[in-house]
């Protein structure tokens, strides 16, 4: 029988939960992650712009500012350790008016107070030199901003944690938490777990978990944003993220960002949502993105549209005034054994590891953690055939002929990569899981060519039947069964 007793249980396998798991695996602890979905990176961790922020819009002294700057500085090493796609592209914040200039200068000063390096005001000539598609009379150039693949970052953190001994439990929604002396009894999915520590990394559901833990009074508010994903063909027109001047509160309206994989994202806009599971795109906001997106990126055209998505920043707010508050990482003396994370939203991706280290520090305030000398910070990603030289491609096929079978034509993803995505540690069991790991189905035909092949591979490799092939969430069966039952011998 499985031993469900842990030193630390982390609730949520998003980028924060996975970071916490990875940082805690540096110590000799029994660690488990409880995730309600069938994979990691299913919530807002995979529904964002993929920006590595520099940290010039956050209030000096805030956790957001501190963690963003810290996370930004270390990311070259992180990307190398975890073998994930990352580019330090820099970013421009463009302005047209005196008011824009005032706001931009204000945030340049804030950035400098926060310790952001490489911030520079540039004129139109320099701006055109950096990116001639960017509109604007002048700009703030942020040298250290970058772009990364948020899904792969989340997956890499989780895989690395798993390699270092962390157990992941999927389809394990936490339904009840009971304190029993020094331990918590956690009912999740169909199982009961026991743990000395609980770390709440439940993202949009953080308040629900916080309430279960008996920590009352927190409130979050959902700022939803929608996106358009543009064809890689559109990326010839843009090589650096271009943001319009922020408003006085530091909020950016719709902007355009190249992704590290070569698409362009247009969005997000921002509006309030009440529902944590509301990821729908809406007609009005899609039209708004087309209108506002065209102002900042003149190639925002229907011929480049390949997909839409939406994500939500669940910000911690003051229940009295409604004011937006900083990230919260708390371990209260009246609630021992709990590290409660509330309102971890943007720039959560940039801040994930710094936040995780602060969680570790909270635990270390209460007990001495023994270092795990076997901890290995390195994780190897799936070798992407499309990105290799011709010589390397030949070698790959010679070593594994599966590299010679192209499954996804748009993104040139091979059978070898799909099989690895399925069979890697924490292997993908859903179509979306394979997409996130390999980029298959993410091109302009959106799976028209490869989806049938991938679902066949899921059936073959995972030994499941038609109706057991899942798209993304629990219950997202892609098929209802066979068209006709074929009898043996037919």
């Amino acid at each position, binding site marked *: 029988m499985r031993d469900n007793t842990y030193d630390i249980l982390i609730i949520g396998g998003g980028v924060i939960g996975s970071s916490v798991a990875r940082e805690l695996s540096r110590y000799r602890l029994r660690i488990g992650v409880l995730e309600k979905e069938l994979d990691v990176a299913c919530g807002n961790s995979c529904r964002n712009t993929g920006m590595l922020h520099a940290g010039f819009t956050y209030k000096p002294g805030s956790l957001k500012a501190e963690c963003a700057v810290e996370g930004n500085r270390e990311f070259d090493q992180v990307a190398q350790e975890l073998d994930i796609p990352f580019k330090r592209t820099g970013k421009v914040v463009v302005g047209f008016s005196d008011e824009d200039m005032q706001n931009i200068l204000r945030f340049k000063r804030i950035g400098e107070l926060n310790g952001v390096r490489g911030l520079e005001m540039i004129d139109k000539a320099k701006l055109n030199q950096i990116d001639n598609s960017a509109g604007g009379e002048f700009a703030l150039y942020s040298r250290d901003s970058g772009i990364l693949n948020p899904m792969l970052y989340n997956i890499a953190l989780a895989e690395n944690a798993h390699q270092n001994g962390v157990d992941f439990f999927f389809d394990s929604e936490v339904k009840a938490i009971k304190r029993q002396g020094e331990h918590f009894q956690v009912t999740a999915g169909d199982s009961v777990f026991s743990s000395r520590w609980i770390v709440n990394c439940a993202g949009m559901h953080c308040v629900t978990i916080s309430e279960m833990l008996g920590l009352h009074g927190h409130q979050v508010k959902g700022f939803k944003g929608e996106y358009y*994903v543009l064809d890689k*063909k559109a990326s010839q027109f843009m090589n650096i993220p271009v943001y319009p001047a922020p408003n006085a509160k530091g909020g950016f309206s719709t902007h355009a960002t190249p992704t590290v994989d070569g698409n362009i994202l247009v969005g997000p806009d921002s509006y309030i949502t009440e529902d944590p*599971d509301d*990821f*729908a*795109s*809406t*007609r009005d906001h*899609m039209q708004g993105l087309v209108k506002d997106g065209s102002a900042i990126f003149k190639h925002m055209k*229907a*011929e480049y*549209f*390949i*997909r*839409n*998505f939406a994500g939500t920043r669940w910000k911690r707010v003051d229940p009295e005034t409604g004011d937006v508050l900083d990230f919260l990482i708390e371990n209260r003396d009246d609630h021992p054994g709990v590290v409660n994370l509330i309102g971890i939203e943007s720039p959560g991706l940039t801040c994930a590891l710094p936040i995780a280290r602060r969680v570790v520090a909270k635990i270390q305030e209460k007990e001495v953690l023994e270092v795990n000398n076997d901890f290995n910070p390195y994780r190897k990603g799936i070798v992407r055939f499309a990105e290799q030289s*011709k010589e390397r*491609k*030949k070698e790959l*096929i*010679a070593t594994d*002929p*599966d590299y*010679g*079978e*192209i499954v996804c*034509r*748009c993104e*040139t993803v091979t059978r070898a990569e799909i099989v690895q995505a399925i069979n890697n540690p924490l292997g993908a069991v859903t179509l979306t899981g394979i997409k996130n790991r390999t980029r298959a189905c993410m091109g302009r*035909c*959106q*799976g*028209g*060519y490869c*989806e*049938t092949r991938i*679902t*066949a591979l899921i059936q073959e490799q995972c030994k499941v039947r*038609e109706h057991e092939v*899942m*798209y*993304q*969430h*629990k*219950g*997202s*069966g*892609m*098929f*209802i*069964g*066979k*068209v*006709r039952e*074929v009898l043996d011998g037919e």
Partner: protein
Amino acid sequence: MENKDVIIIGGGPAGLAAAVQLYKLGITNILILEREKHLGGILRQCIHDGFGLQRFCESLSGPEYAQRFIDEVRELNIPYMTEVTVTEVTAGRKVTAISRRGVMEFQAKAVALTMGCRERTRGAISIPGTRPAGVYTAGVAQSYMNLANIMPGQEVVILGSGDIGLIMARRLTLEGAHVKAVFEVQPYPSGLPRNIEQCLNDYEIPLFLSHTVVDVKGHSRLEGVTVAQVDEQYRPIPGTEQEYNCDTLILSVGLIPENELSLGAGLTLDSRTKGAVVDEDYQTSCTGIFAAGNVLQVHDLVDFVSIEAERMALSIQECFLSSQFGNAEIEIVVDASISYSVPQKTTGKKDFTLSLRPKRPGRNCTVFVKQENVTIARKKFAKVLPAEMIQLAIPAERIDPEKKLEITLI
């Protein structure tokens, strides 16, 4: 690096017809490269009949139609390779292909692009809503059902009245699914009249014109769609929304020529056809690179794909014989009554067939091909439909090489 006279990219109906024709014309140092396990292309999953009525004067299924060409390829011993994906074609006609055996490179005198087309997706037409399982393009659903024996769903709504959508309405019905309705955003169907009759009317599946899907619902699996009527600008009319519970949404909203390789070679594409710009020899903007079939323009009938590919093969042979690869300079332009024409250019030196598609349905119309005020060709039609391609012969002797060809449908 292996040298070939002609590399044919794609072993579907266009590639097969081109190969057979080239071989019969004496051009035998050719090779068909096909990414699937079998030759035949998309026809393999088209198990309904109605293919070959023009060409063979009998109604064949897709696999049967393909097999006639595959048999010829085998009888003639025309070289082909399957499970080989071409990843690059250069303007200098160097072809790189990947297979389980390794990376192959060929230098071709001529390249025939016969890659067919792909389906327009939900993202391309910006359908709002959630992104659950159960949303399929018609061709993907057809592939699941007919090639993999997999049933995608039970309660079905179809958006778009393209032919594959209509065929799938019948197919799903025959296999026990409940097809609630087909919705088409245009005020007229985009599929062929015979398919409306045989796939919808015969099964009492309603078709609603000037309607579209305005919302998709469901977190895990599709739970329903909201449909609304649209005005002349295709904007949903508030107050006309209707809810349909369904677990499957099939999209049949258009086909796009598969031109990834053409782009890589730097060919000029036509923004209307989404295929290459060609002359009357089916030669693209790159000397020695030719295109025919659905990669050039999306056809209604496979019979026309085969004929077009055979014409291309003949042109390739003529170019080889004369050692002249044309330099077409006479432009062919269409007015607002016509969606596009193929070819888009001509040398004016040889007779050719002009293909075009009317923008709107019409009755008792005439296509005029003019050079300034001189009509050089005309053809009368009792009825025209956007779903049915129009073709007419253009005599070279009447073309004035100094002037462009202007086409109108009145």
